């Protein structure tokens, strides 16, 4: 199976380790991974801040780059939700504005083929034990767009539970937002910081060494808060845990 990796602009620029982990993990599972070099950004930041018309060319670009692939895999719940949930809505809005079906038709092919990583593993590849080894105590934060936008449900936790050596600690208030919210973190920085601090305190109370999530944007905010509050906990993307093996451990 040949799939395209949509790494997202944030991961590409700031978290290349997550991308390398996805490649390593999928290759290990027998998937032929391609990284279309022309990929950029799904347009979520534009769309969610109110710049829908600026987001449209980005969505078109996404469709041009990824349209021909069998499946598109992304290690980001929120970018996955952007494509699956909001691209159809952008098409509908364009239609309602009297601009016809062109945008909807352009975006339609990528919508059903886009999968968040844990969804792809569990639903498409049908695996929950990916042969990973990660001897640490981990707590899992289900990010909002993965949880409510894509409905990832128990998939990430099932994958983590199957990891050898991993001790999974329940996170109190797990389904509460960490306070990132894209430009929300800048526009409402006081509230965002208070939400982040509460998330970090809840994570600390589990005694875990690592807070894991399926979205580096949320992890950037949570990790930045952890570092400022000097908790000693580390934020780690789930892909890096799942890619870790006894032969090639990820610390």
């Amino acid at each position: 199976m040949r799939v395209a990796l949509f790494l997202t602009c944030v991961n590409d620029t700031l978290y290349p380790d997550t991308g390398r982990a996805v490649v390593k993990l999928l290759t290990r599972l027998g998937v032929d991974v391609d990284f279309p070099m022309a990929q950029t950004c799904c347009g979520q930041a534009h769309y969610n801040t109110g710049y829908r018309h600026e987001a449209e060319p980005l969505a078109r670009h996404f469709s041009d780059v990824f349209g021909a692939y069998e499946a598109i895999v992304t290690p980001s719940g929120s970018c996955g939700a952007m494509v699956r949930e909001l691209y159809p809505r952008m098409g509908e809005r364009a239609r309602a504005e009297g601009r016809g079906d062109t945008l909807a038709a352009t975006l339609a092919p990528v919508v059903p083929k886009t999968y968040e990583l844990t969804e792809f593993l569990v639903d498409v590849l049908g695996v929950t034990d990916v042969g990973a080894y990660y001897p640490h105590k981990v707590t899992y934060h289900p990010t909002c767009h993965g949880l409510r936008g894509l409905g990832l449900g128990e998939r990430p936790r099932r994958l983590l539970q199957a990891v050898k050596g991993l001790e999974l600690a329940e996170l109190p208030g797990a389904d509460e937002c960490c306070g990132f919210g894209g430009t929300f973190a800048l526009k409402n920085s006081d509230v965002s910081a208070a939400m982040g601090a509460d998330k970090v305190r809840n994570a600390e109370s589990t005694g875990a060494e690592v807070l894991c999530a399926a979205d580096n944007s949320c992890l950037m905010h949570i990790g930045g808060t952890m570092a400022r509050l000097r908790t000693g906990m580390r934020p780690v993307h789930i892909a890096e845990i799942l890619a870790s093996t006894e032969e090639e451990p990820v610390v």
Partner: protein
Amino acid sequence: MSGTYLGMPAFPEAAREAVGNTTLRGNLRHATHTIRAKRATAVAEVSDWAELREAGKRIKDHTLRHLDRYLVRLEESVTAAGGVVHWAADADEANEIVTQLVKMTGESEVVKVKSMATQEIGLNEALEAEGIRAYETDLAELIVQLGKDRPSHILVPAIHRNRGEIRDIFAREMSEWGRPAPEGLTDTPAELAEAARVHLREKFLRAKVGISGANFMVAETGTLVVVESEGNGRMCLTLPETLISVVGIEKIVPTWRDLEVFLQTLPRSSTAERMNPYTSTWTGTTGGDGPSTFHLVLLDNGRTDTLADEVGRQALRCIRCSACLNVCPVYERAGGHAYGSVYPGPIGAILSPQLRGTGSEIDASLPYASSLCGACYEVCPVAIDIPEVLVHLRERVVQGGEVTREGNKVVLRPAKGHAAERAAMRAARWAFTHPGALRTGQRTASRTRRFHPRTLPGPGRAWSGTRELPPVPAEPFRDWWQRTRGGKDGDR
């Protein structure tokens, strides 16, 4: 809406104070988490919750689509039952109608059932200006009124107060409004409730005019419905000689049968009760029982303008249960007052900028008072996609566009203060549609990584003030990929 909130600062400034107030945050956290957990239990008991939610949504959407027809039907039914219907286009008109109706009775005081519509139009202040005193009889509204305060929650207006604060307010203020609080009042709930009961009982027995809102109006029978927990509303609805009900036009349902859906979803969503303790219904007047005169004031106040917006109109489905407030992490930290409206929380963030327009600083900032986490949509018993409307209103703020105000189509200009952001978004869009430019930017960031500051200038300062910045990696992913083709060249 009411002028009470004019001149409110934008949401982020208003929220800052609340975030720093540990008592307030403690009160809110305790109250919202308690009710959040109870609501989840009460909802989980119902096997067909998803169907009820869908039914509620459909009934409301159908009614809103044919609102003109159902309102005329309602007017006919109410008139046939002996009531008088008045139409109010805005807050001033509604206040004027009610004030004149009260004056015609010759009375100078009224008792009030807790009502969002009368809060919305600032009726108490309008009556006060005409020498009429309005007594709030809902316990929480009484606390707010005695404390010369503002409500901060739709269902629990005094949620920001704890028991000690309430005791102090009662002891200090009750004598000003009627029977004073008993000597040595403590902060036990039973004593506080008894003090309020005795204080209010005098008002109920004396008042000749009652003012209410309604949770629902049934078009086919002309029946109005109030659901409540305390029974104070029922006292106001049955004891006075004249009853004036001020109700938003969107509160209508076509038939009596439709109530079955909402009388299940509303109490479970709001107070986490299977059924609320008091459901009062009144249909016009009945000889020898209840009020002998009944007036219904139908309030528009921005509602038909909101109805004209095909994305935003879903906000009018709201049944004011406040489940969205109780799950909202932003509301929990910012408190209700920061929203600058009688409608706080997620629903307030989409309702106020539609009812009032996005012209003021506070209204232009409300669509951004959310991290778009979606918890509000998940709990909404009439499935209002609040995040969708928030994003839609953000678009209105930054890009302008056509809206309906007072029945006329007008084209809004983009709001001020977004020029730099707009330029940044355009630049980012350009870079993201030119992969080569993105790559150059990434490489530059990587090569200069040793010189990156630990704090950011401009809007980024808000980030680096409370959070560490992530380090920029030595090599962006795409360079690694091109160098190794995904590790196939040996470099992992």
